[in-house]
């Protein structure tokens, strides 16, 4: 998923599904021929799935772990560097982000090689600098490497001019690419967890009576509903 696609995905829930037609391209998975297709709610997740999806889920969940224990330990350290516990919420590992990453690389095999290779890149870099694996470094040593790979270069148009931001040291580009993927997977895993949803402040997904933008918010943005809107639109009596 590239950047523009991911930003489109942000719109889920607030936009007609037609707009999201290419938000996430379907991915190749092994063909599974099925003789029946009866939909029921899956016993494993509570998500309604048709027969073919249930079989695919069973197959995924029966697969051995993709990551080795050492790789998982490295993922956990990195995820908690990216999303540590702070005053608002817990850490990535509190939200079981490493477990999410383990699942998602099986579900989306395109992530497997960049993740495996990137994790190995981290260890090689650690050995070069400190003669130890990344997980065996002190926090200060870990951050010294992370600081070299956490800030990718970006480019955008502003007033007809191309603006470039960020600077990557020579030789660090592959590490930057890996860390960016790690940051994206960690953030998406964290903010779709119960801890993360609460942190970012998404307060929907519950029965509601939509009565318009709250009055104080309208005022903050110097907006107001027109007389026509107030007359025509649905209104719930304020409690």
């Amino acid at each position, binding site marked *: *998923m*590239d950047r*523009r696609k991911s*930003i489109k*995905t*942000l*719109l889920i*829930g*607030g*936009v*007609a599904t*037609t*707009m999201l*037609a*290419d*938000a*996430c391209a379907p*991915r190749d*998975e092994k063909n599974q*021929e099925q003789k029946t*297709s*009866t*939909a029921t709610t899956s016993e494993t*997740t509570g*998500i*309604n799935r*048709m*027969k*073919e999806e249930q079989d*695919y889920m069973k197959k995924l969940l029966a697969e051995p772990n993709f990551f080795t224990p050492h790789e998982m330990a490295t993922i956990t350290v990195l995820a908690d560097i*990216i999303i*540590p516990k*702070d005053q608002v919420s817990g850490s990535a590992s509190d939200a079981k982000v490493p477990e*999410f990453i383990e699942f*998602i690389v099986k579900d989306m095999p395109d992530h497997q090689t960049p993740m495996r290779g990137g994790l190995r890149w981290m260890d090689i870099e650690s050995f070069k600098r400190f003669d130890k694996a990344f997980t065996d470094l002190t926090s200060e040593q870990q951050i010294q490497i992370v600081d070299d790979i*956490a*800030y*990718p*270069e*970006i480019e*955008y148009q502003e007033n007809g001019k191309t603006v470039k931001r*960020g600077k990557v040291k020579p030789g660090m580009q592959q590490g930057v690419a890996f860390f960016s993927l790690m940051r*994206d997977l960690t*953030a*998406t895993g964290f*903010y779709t967890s119960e801890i993360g*949803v609460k942190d970012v402040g*998404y307060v*929907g*997904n*519950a029965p*509601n009576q*939509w009565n*318009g*933008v*709250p009055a104080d*918010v309208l005022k903050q*943005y110097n907006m107001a509903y027109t007389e026509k809107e107030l007359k025509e*639109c*649905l209104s719930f009596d304020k409690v």
Partner: protein
Amino acid sequence: MGDNLQVKKQPKQYDAIIVGSGAGGGMAAWVLASAGLKICVLEAGPMFDPKKDSNQLKNPWESPRRGASTKYRPFGDFDGCYWGWEIDGEPYTHVGDTKWEWWRARMLGGRTNHWGRISLRFGPRDFKRKSIDGLGEDWPIGYEDIKPYYDKIDKLLGVFGTNEGLPNDPDGIFLPPPKPRLHELFVKKAGNSINLPVIPSRLSILTKPMQLPGGGDRNCIFCAQCGRSCKFYGDFSSSSVLVLPAVRTGNVDLVTNAMAREVLTNNEGLATGVSYINKDDMQEYQVSGRTVVLAASACESARLLLNSKSSRHPNGLANSSNVVGKYLHDSTGADMGGIIPELFDRKRYNEDGVGGMHVYTPWWLDNKKLDFPRGYHIEYGGGFGMPVYGFNWGVENLNGRFQVKAKQKQPGGYGASLKEDYRYFFGAHVGMAGRGEAVAREDSYCEIDPSVVDKYGIPVLRFNTSYSDYEIKQAKHMKETFAELLHAMGAVITWGGDDGPHNNYGLHNPGNIIHEAGTVRMGSDPKRSALNKYSQAHDCKNVFCVDGGPFVSQADKNITWTILALSMRTSEYIVDQMKKRAI
């Protein structure tokens, strides 16, 4: 499959066999069954009742992939539609490097379980485009023929909107619309400043409680999850609002997992029934009926007709004109999105609202003054959406560019500072999508692939579709409008801004917008159309088509409300003709 293949013939003689249970088939089932006719509905997918089967109100963490898509659910793990761009064992092919993206739902209610609920009437001009611009063909009917049916479905199914008195976006019988969300107020204000109309949207979602046809409560809980299908039947899905009520009349035998193979005909060339394969036991079946109503989707209905060859119909059923499969067209589409810096660090509240936009822009210009012949409408999105897979992807492009709390950071980063950024940018995005009318052309079509069958042995469709300069110029105009509107609302373009002549201005591939139509078109001249003005086959008076197939042109509107109105009109005609013993 069993060693001894047998064809099991059902002895029951139905008044009508309906193939497909989406908008067109559901409406036909309801109208015919409530008139007392005995109906058989064949649906290629499994049973689906939103009340039991919807993933509504699931949290993102309840999906191990956090709502990400799979090939089984291209719109994500919670979406209300089984299958999509590809189906295991059911291929389709293309001529050369042409691109048609074919969405196929396989479930009771079809794609209406997840559709956008955008319910727009065609206007008077939409039926007479050839008379206006010389392109394509006029419909054999006009707005006055279909208006009574739009009125009836507004009341039967429920739709919100406002009567604006617009010449080509007719008024309806509307429930009150929801108030605009905050980003929609930004859109409206900016639209006003550049003379772009932004009016309440028209969606088939119940802002006031209603009853199902035949009885049963329906209401909206304002969770914005219509795409998952609604446990409270608060939006229009064919499964909940038409097919299941039709079944409750006692006049419908519903056969799920039944993949239609052919329409059967007799020596006189009249239809006698439908053959299908039961996906559960892989056995062959036949059902008999006085009439056959195709509602399998524009392309699947064309495929069925083309595969139903006989000595009386050597070119496929209802195809002496050779138009079946031709004039295939989709809505055009191009999109753009941005971020509104004024909305950074927003106060949090539940702004889910209904599933989809609360405001939209109907086509507002005169094509005679433009370099493309047909219009488009604009759909809007944005605000606080539920976080799902992909959420917060690529943060470096935001925190490297925009200050966070008056501080310019380096792109990317980690730690507590990064968590602050994610909170700061949440809810500031806005997006827009143009959905326009393409010109239906004879040389943009589907046909039977001469050498490929699906796993049931049914010959598959091969597509050969393309866009002309008309659609490309329209996409260019969309992009220019979007950029102007985003600029006027103080937004910064974050995606869709790099499209240009190199990629047809971001014009989506045909089929991608999922509004397939035109393949079994109606007309007055049997040499140039497959159906008459009642969607009855010229060549075979007891065969009808009630999906997107009969559409002569598509309008700059989503087609579902018109499929429903035309299907109701055809179904009432069938009841009338049966009473008169004319069929």
